């Protein structure tokens, strides 16, 4: 029930005892402010880690070939290992249980021109799965599809910057781009979070490239993603197994580091994952610590306030105040101050994060922010603790005989 007289009493008590109110409010504001900022910074650190790997799928594996460095099973060192379509098919079928997406890649450099604009670009000839591996975002038209692969169509998907370079203001879809003398139909334009280099690329069907450039079934590299339900250790085992099988397939010595290389993101991610979970624990400890410090602070102040008001409580009791009214006046005041101060701390903290957040990128802190619900619950905990800390001494004070309270000078 809303009791206007109680609130009048409380507002008077707050405004007439400014130092006391400000002191307790400041403690809460400061605790929430610290909590918000520390959590925000820690979150920012976390964001930096996860952002560093948004370019490619986190569960990717890259398989490259090179020349052998050791003689093995009658084969000389210095032999070049060349992947072919059959190797792609072998991995795709034999490791079907663990492979999510898979693509081959062929690298080429091409001179591209459209009307009067020309430039030099890297070209990647790929399978349709490549889109998921590279997290390519097609925002106009479409990506390479299976039909392109089957029919070896002369189509390309161009990066955003290629479009900007060559097509200027012309819509590239349906236009023909000239790649080293051969016209290709532009079917899509893409963006990539990996940055400018990744957007200055062209993609074409692998089968087309194999036919046009060399008429063979050579492949430069095979990329795949493992099934997301594999945990890090399973993924690492899968990578090691794959490497071992491939080395046997190409008669490469097991300890040859060059001829067949499998780069497994799982290895790297495992380390990062451990790092972020340690960071998470650290955040939790810091948050808890700040909160506990705040609780201790507000508790001390509440005890002090009740002590300071003992005489007032005695007077009020002599004039006929019931114990309940004594408790409620102290408690409502404390909850009110804590709520306002907590909210103020939250605003201040979020405001500071917003303000300085964008300037902290150099310190490995990206987009430092906190979820409002987290800070709200921290404030609620503080209010609860403040109320409890106020309730106990208030209850006690409401029970002391007025004569004892009045004697207190």
């Amino acid at each position: 029930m809303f009791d206007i007289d109680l609130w009048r009493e409380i507002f008077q008590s707050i405004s007439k005892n400014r130092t006391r109110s400000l002191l307790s409010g400041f403690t809460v504001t400061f605790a929430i402010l610290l909590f918000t900022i520390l959590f925000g910074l820690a979150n920012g650190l976390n964001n930096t880690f996860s952002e560093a790997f948004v370019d490619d799928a986190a569960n990717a594996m890259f398989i490259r070939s090179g020349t052998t460095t050791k003689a093995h099973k009658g084969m000389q060192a210095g032999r070049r290992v060349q992947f072919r379509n059959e190797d792609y098919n072998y991995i795709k079928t034999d490791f079907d249980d663990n492979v999510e997406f898979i693509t081959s890649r062929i690298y080429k450099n091409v001179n591209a021109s459209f009307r009067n604009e020309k430039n030099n670009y890297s070209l990647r000839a790929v399978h349709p799965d490549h889109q998921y591996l590279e997290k390519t975002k097609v925002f106009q038209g479409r990506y390479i599809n299976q039909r392109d692969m089957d029919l070896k169509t002369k189509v390309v998907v161009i990066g955003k910057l290629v479009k900007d370079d060559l097509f200027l203001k012309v819509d590239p879809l349906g236009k023909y781009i000239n790649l080293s003398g051969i016209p290709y139909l532009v079917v899509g334009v893409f963006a990539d979070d990996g940055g400018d280099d990744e957007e200055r690329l062209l993609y074409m069907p692998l089968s087309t490239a194999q036919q046009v450039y060399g008429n063979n079934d050579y492949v430069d590299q095979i990329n795949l993603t493992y099934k997301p339900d594999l945990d890090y250790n399973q993924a690492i085992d899968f990578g090691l197994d794959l490497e071992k099988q491939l080395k046997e397939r190409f008669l490469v010595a097991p300890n040859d580091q060059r001829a067949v290389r499998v780069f497994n993101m799982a290895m790297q991610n495992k380390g990062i994952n451990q790092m972020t979970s340690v960071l998470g624990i650290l955040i939790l400890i810091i948050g808890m610590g700040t909160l506990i410090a705040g609780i201790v602070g507000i508790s001390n102040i509440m005890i002090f306030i009740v002590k300071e008001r003992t005489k007032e409580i005695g007077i009020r009791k002599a004039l006929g105040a019931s114990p309940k009214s004594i408790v409620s006046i102290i408690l409502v005041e404390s909850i009110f101050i804590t709520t306002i101060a907590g909210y103020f701390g939250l605003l201040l903290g979020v405001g500071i994060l917003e303000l300085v957040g964008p300037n902290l990128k150099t310190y490995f802190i990206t987009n430092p922010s906190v979820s409002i619900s987290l800070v709200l619950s921290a404030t609620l905990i503080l209010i609860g603790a403040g109320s409890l800390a106020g309730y106990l001494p208030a209850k006690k004070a409401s029970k002391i005989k007025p004569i004892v309270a009045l004697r207190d000078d």
Partner: protein
Amino acid sequence: MLEINQLHKSYSIGDSKLHVLKGIDLSVNQGEMVAIMGSSGSGKSTLLNIIGMLDEADEGAYILDQVPIKNLTEKKAAIYRNKFLGFIFQSFNLINYKNALENVALPLYYQGLKRKERQEKARFHLEKVGLLDWETHLPSELSGGQKQRVAIARALASDPKLILADEPTGALDTTTSYDIMAFLQQLNNEGKTILIVTHEEDIAAMCKRIVRLRDGVIMEDKKVTQVRAESHV
């Protein structure tokens, strides 16, 4: 209107027990003005505190306006204090962050009166003690005599049956003391029952009856011819 029979009270100080009141019998009628006298440690303040329900007796009966005061819950005691009693203290005990009017209105707040009614009544009583012009002043802006008069107005505000004054002039100079006493006498003439604890003979002489305490028992209880305080002012 007030009946006390064989009242006992002791305090424990460390291991030893201090027997402060050793069987007090006292009866006060409507309209009396009683001085309770005694040197310090005689138990006079303890007696007043028990009468004021600020403290509890260990033994004995206490009947106030036909209501036995015994085993009161905190809530009940609060209601009785508010309804029956008005307190005047030596150190005034005004709430320092409330102005004169708000201090006087406080007992009315605990009576559950509406704000408007409270202010009206509080103004009436402030006017009675001659401080209506000071209603917005804080206690720190008032002189000792003015503070005590605000306290008297506060004691009167709830229209109590009994006014209890614990050394009401203890912190005041002689002139102001007589001024306050003159006011209390005037209240008594209007029919209020007043109990004053004091150790000053001249103050006691301004009452109609003097009860002398020594070592927790009543030594003397006599009616006196009241000295009018106005004659001193």
